[in-house]
């Protein structure tokens, strides 16, 4: 019993932000596992569904867009081009939507037991990453069927693209989940923002179309969006070696030298802002929820 006298008196409820999430990573793991379990509860095919759905989507893209609409003529192997951007946007959309709602959704717990509240938005991003995995598998199958060759730089680009969006999701997730406690409008705002995200990034079209119409300066602004850079990195990783003659257009100039560092810095800044806002607002979560 003497040992207790040696431990210091501390103020409860004052956490260390994301550091605490790392410290409580076992709990994080259980929270992520819980969400995944609940999602497949009571379904016969279970996890298989998350492979079937994107596979069907890919086949539809291939036939309807590539063959019927003839988009393969303009963009070589359009199905892989489109799909590689879409899976990434799917991840971002799900991660941010769920992260933004996570604090209000878990209010029952937050009001009663003290734990690092950052766990909830971070767990949402991890859950979305788990759902992203089957889509990645389908993408890779599509890639191999259309003559993809993995390269070290390509794989690094894919990893970097995912990392940029994961950081951005956590940062924006922290920001909007805490604001959402005070103004429930922020959920709707996030949904609107995500709807726009698909169109302000080269998912359906190609980056050089933007460059031709906007000129250098505005194209620079367009490129400052980390989502855009992440999509371009994915195109580089998964599509460029399957595109035939269009491969030269796979990535804008200086993607690795300039735009990737810019995207990392912007995402890190958003993460810092998200953490700062969250810590300011979390003090009153329990009474406002």
């Amino acid at each position, binding site marked *: 019993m003497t040992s207790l006298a040696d431990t210091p008196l501390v103020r409860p409820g004052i956490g260390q932000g994301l550091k605490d999430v790392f410290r409580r990573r076992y709990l994080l793991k*259980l929270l992520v596992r819980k969400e995944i379990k609940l999602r497949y509860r009571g379904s016969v095919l279970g996890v298989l569904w998350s492979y079937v759905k994107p596979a069907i989507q890919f086949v539809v893209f291939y036939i309807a867009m590539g063959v019927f609409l003839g988009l393969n003529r303009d963009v070589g192997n359009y199905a892989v081009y489109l799909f590689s951007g879409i899976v990434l946007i799917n991840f971002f959309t799900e991660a941010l939507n769920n992260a933004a709602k996570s604090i209000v959704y878990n209010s029952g717990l937050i009001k009663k037991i003290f734990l690092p509240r950052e766990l909830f938005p971070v767990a949402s991003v991890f859950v979305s990453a788990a759902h992203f995995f089957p889509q990645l598998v389908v993408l890779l199958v599509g890639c191999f069927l259309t003559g993809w060759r993995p390269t070290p730089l390509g794989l690094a680009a894919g990893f970097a693209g995912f990392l940029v969006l994961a950081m951005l999701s956590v940062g924006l997730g922290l920001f909007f989940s805490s604001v959402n406690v005070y*103004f429930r409008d922020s959920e709707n705002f996030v949904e609107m923002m995500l709807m726009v995200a698909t169109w302000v990034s080269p998912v359906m079209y190609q980056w050089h179309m933007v460059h031709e119409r906007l000129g250098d300066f505005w194209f620079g602004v367009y490129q400052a969006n980390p989502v855009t850079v992440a999509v371009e990195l994915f195109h580089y990783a998964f599509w460029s070696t399957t595109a035939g003659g269009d491969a030269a257009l796979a990535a804008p100039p200086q993607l690795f030298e300039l735009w990737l560092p810019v995207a990392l810095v912007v995402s890190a800044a958003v993460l810092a802002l998200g953490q700062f806002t969250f810590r300011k607002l979390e003090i009153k979560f329990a*009474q406002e929820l």
Partner: protein
Amino acid sequence: MSEQSPITVEIKGISKQFVLRHTRSIKEALIWFLKGRKGDLSAKFHALRDVSMEIRQGETVALLGFNGSGKSTLLKHISGVMTPDEGTVRTRGRVAGLIEVGAGFHPDLSGRDNVYLNAAILGMSEAQIKERFDSIVEFAEIGEFIDTEVRFYSSGMYLRLAFSVAVHSDPEVFLVDEILAVGDEPFQKKCLDKIQELVDAGQTLVVVSHDLDLVQRVCSRGILLEHGRVVKDGPSHEVVEFLRARTK
């Protein structure tokens, strides 16, 4: 429980005001702002007012008072769920407990999954949970139902499992809010015995209960709150008498 025992909960002059917010949308807040911030977008009241106390290791403290007097709010300040507007709360060692039965339980998960999740929420490590799992299930008398989804549990089973997890998390300071009265007689006795055992081993106990007989049995010290203020702090039988006299 001598003067030499270390302080486990130190509360110095804390006050807490709650805002009764009438609006939750940006639109309404904006209109209010544009109209020159007139009227009450929010009315405030004190849930705790200049509350101070020191609780030492091994003490058994009951928070008493009518509904709305601030007992749960005070417990939430000790656990860290809430932070005071003024004053400071400091605690020593791990603080955990049952503010509400089954907070953190998910009805669609099995008892087993819920034990793991809840124990981790209360701050237990993976190794500790594995080590204490059998003991948790045994104490809760759940038996073979441990792999059944919790939504099929009776309310008694639910309570027993929640209490068992909390009690096995073995914190230095254990908080209990109005749950001791929920279970049936034998289980209640078992819980009280377990609590006594933990207190004997040096745990600090802070409970909220309306059952005044039970309070006198379990707690040596009583603290009476009224409208967020401490109006009496002393041996539990005296405070209970005082409260009874007041109610008449």
